[in-house]
């Protein structure tokens, strides 16, 4: 088991390297650089731009250098824990990123847990009672939830709560708690706000997971080992939960791998709409202004988050399925 985990961790290193190159390439792709965006912004306000100042700026940030050199400067800094300097905010990226990434990780984690907690029982019920009223209801609902874009749900929710209930639901904290130190009241306030983004971000994937669980379980329910277990006299409820559900859970667990990226990219749009203090809106802004070190850090850390999620799902799979553990 330990060897299994070590192998998986070792496998993450080249993946992380590939992600870093990809992240760097992505932020280099648009024409121009931060300085040209900055120059355009100044030009818009009507002021004259001094080209000497611009050249000076380029010099300072090392923007004129060879791309490979830039990459190694960047990645070398990260290895030492230095993500570079944000051009736009004039702050070390590290200071900007961690709080935001923490919120993203927290929201994603909570969403994942909620998704599993909701889709697992619903999936089981709609498989065991296939073609029943419950099955048709959940199926209809699942198709709707998969089809409706998340940002639309966010906007509708915002509208309803503001216009009908007069409650502001944007953000993750009430203004009073925004900068307050950690306390029970703050956690409660957070939960009061967090259910909306969790609901919005998780909706589509929950629906998809329900369908996956249903399909997996339907495959397993008619396998000979289920019949054999029934023939030994197991009560139906216990039979379903201990045998086919155990086996059907495997593909379910491995969905972390694709659910996590979907969650994080969904989070970007939803957070922008709902104005959440997570990584999404800041990343969007950084990409728009070509604040490359900030954007690069976000992409890299998001990639890392997905890798860690996949690792967790691999470990969970190995725990739940002896066939993976022992082969």
């Amino acid at each position, binding site marked *: 088991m330990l060897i299994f985990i070590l192998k998986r961790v070792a496998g993450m290193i080249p993946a992380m390297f590939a992600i870093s190159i990809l992240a760097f390439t992505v932020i280099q792709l648009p024409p121009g650089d931060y300085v040209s965006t900055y120059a355009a912004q100044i030009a818009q306000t009507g002021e004259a731009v001094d080209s000497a100042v611009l050249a000076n700026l380029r010099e300072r940030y090392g923007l004129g250098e060879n791309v490979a050199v830039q990459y190694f400067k960047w990645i070398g800094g990260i290895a030492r824990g230095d993500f570079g300097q944000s051009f736009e905010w004039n702050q070390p990226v590290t200071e900007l990123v961690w709080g935001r990434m923490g919120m993203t990780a927290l929201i994603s984690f909570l969403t994942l847990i909620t998704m599993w907690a909701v889709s697992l029982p619903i999936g089981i019920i709609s498989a065991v009672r296939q073609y029943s009223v419950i099955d048709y209801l959940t199926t209809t609902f699942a198709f709707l939830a998969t089809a409706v874009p998340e940002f639309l749900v966010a906007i509708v929710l915002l509208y309803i709560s503001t216009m009908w209930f007069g409650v502001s639901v944007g953000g993750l904290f009430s203004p009073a708690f925004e900068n307050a130190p950690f306390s029970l009241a703050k956690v409660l306030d957070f939960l009061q706000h967090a259910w909306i983004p969790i609901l919005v971000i998780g909706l589509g994937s929950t629906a998809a997971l329900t369908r996956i669980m249903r399909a997996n379980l339907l495959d397993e329910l008619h*396998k000979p*080992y289920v019949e*054999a277990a029934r*023939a030994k*006299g*197991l*009560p139906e409820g216990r039979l379903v939960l201990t045998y086919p559900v*155990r086996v059907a859970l495997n593909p379910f667990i491995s969905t972390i791998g694709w659910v996590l990226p979907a969650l994080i990219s969904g989070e970007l749009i939803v957070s922008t709409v709902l104005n959440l203090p997570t990584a999404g809106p800041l990343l969007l802004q950084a990409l728009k202004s070509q604040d490359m070190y900030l954007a690069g850090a976000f992409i890299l850390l998001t990639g890392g988050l997905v890798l860690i999620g996949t690792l967790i799902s691999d470990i969970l799979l190995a725990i739940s399925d002896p066939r993976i553990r022992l082969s």
Partner: protein
Amino acid sequence: MSDETILKVRNLSVDFPIQKSVVHAVRDVSFDLKRGETLCVVGESGSGKSVTARAILQLVAKPGAITGGQILLDTGSGEVDIVKLGSRGLAIREVRGRRIAMIFQEPMTSLSPVHTIGHQIVETILLHEKISKEEARKRAAALLGRVRIPEPEKALDRYSFEFSGGMRQRAMIAMALSCNPEILIADEPTTALDVTTQAEILSLIRELQRDRGMAVLFITHDMGVVAQIADRVMVMFRGEKVEEAGVFDLFERPQQAYTRALLGSVLKLETPAPRPPRPVAEKPIAKIENLELHFPLNAGFMGRPTNYLKAIDGVSLTINQGETVGVVGESGSGKTTLGRTLLRVYDPTGGQVMYWPSNGEPVDIATLNKAGMKSLYGEVRMVFQDPHSSLNPRMTIYQTISEPLRTNTDMTERQMMDRVSELLSRVGLPPDIGDRYPHAFSGGQRQRISIARAVAVRPRLIIADEPTSALDVSLRHQVLDLMRDLQTEYGLSYLFISHDISVIRYFCDRVAVMKNGKIVEVGDVVQICERPQHEYTQNLIGAVPRPDPRLRADAPQ
């Protein structure tokens, strides 16, 4: 054997509503099962024998339902009608596993892959008896020992996928016996196993039955197995009971036409088919020499792998023109791999396969290039085991049969249509079925279509990989006779791969016996079947259940 009846089935009917019609899977079937006896229920696929067995435990899969009759179980304190118990609830669960236990056909999938063997047996014991976990575990270990699983204590903590098929079926039997049931229902428990393993499992079931005085309801399609273990036999056909008799009476004095036909097709395979005379001077069509196919087992750090799976380990075999060479062996012996390597599905790692084409110089298939292989596919064709998966469900019969013509000849569409309808009538199918899809045909018909596809390009050598294994016994000799006729007509040679000695004996001229990738014995089919020289062949032949109950050790003279 006592005459006390433990189970009375009366006028049992099971229906499966399918769309708007109803399939009567079991119709008005009645029989008795006595304590300590073995009743074999025999029939071909679709005869309702498995459904009958499942009905006794209320395990009929939805939407099927018992629509009439009684299943009366003697509990010692009066009779209980299982039909009235319904499929859920405590009462039926008390019967399942406790009074009546069941073992299934597929040992590979009948045990849960994510629970240990021990867990599954202990669970059964704890369901029905109020004893501690430790005691249950002790009993489970004793049971595993009883079914001769080595190191039973350790085996408890292992998973089913760590066992071979035979071992899994033993574990399954141990689980079924864990609560000392009075009735054991065995639904084709040996069909998926090799003959030698089958012989072991059959004698184990018989032995346990004598020890415990258990009644056994044994479902099978194999008359050989019936002859070996049955006390009484019930024959089923299309959901109805055809005949019920003692095993000797049934084999020696069958009363019904269907029983006679069934026994006839079994016994037909017991004697070799008449063969066309062989030419005096044998001319080889293919000569396999020291063929090797090794799969590396480990990736090999920096260089060569150190361990190989020797799927084919130095095989030499000659196939002469117009000859049928059988390859027989148990699962994992490499017989199927050998057939596929001859068509370069796998690239051999050593040795050569010389092939003499109809015109031109002999070529070595083992090293032939792509273009050479392509022209070879016009002369060497393959017929597969499973007629359900070897035909593309999205292609019509015409498309399927004409496909090799399209790739290997330059016939016009018109010519191909003529050839296909000629082929269809040649293999005994109506010539106008070209625009239909495979799902419209039964297993036997599909195998005929596969054969038509194989002979479409007028090949000279056909590699047939278990072409009759998926077919009911009454269809087997029909398909073999068809292949024989085509051989005489087109001068075909066959490499015929099978695990079934009776089919080999019926159909082949010579036979090679394979074990662990090697040929242990080659010879004339009569000599191999009647006077096998090698110990392995002797075991293999000896393990085949013969359809004659008088050959049983316990048969009255």
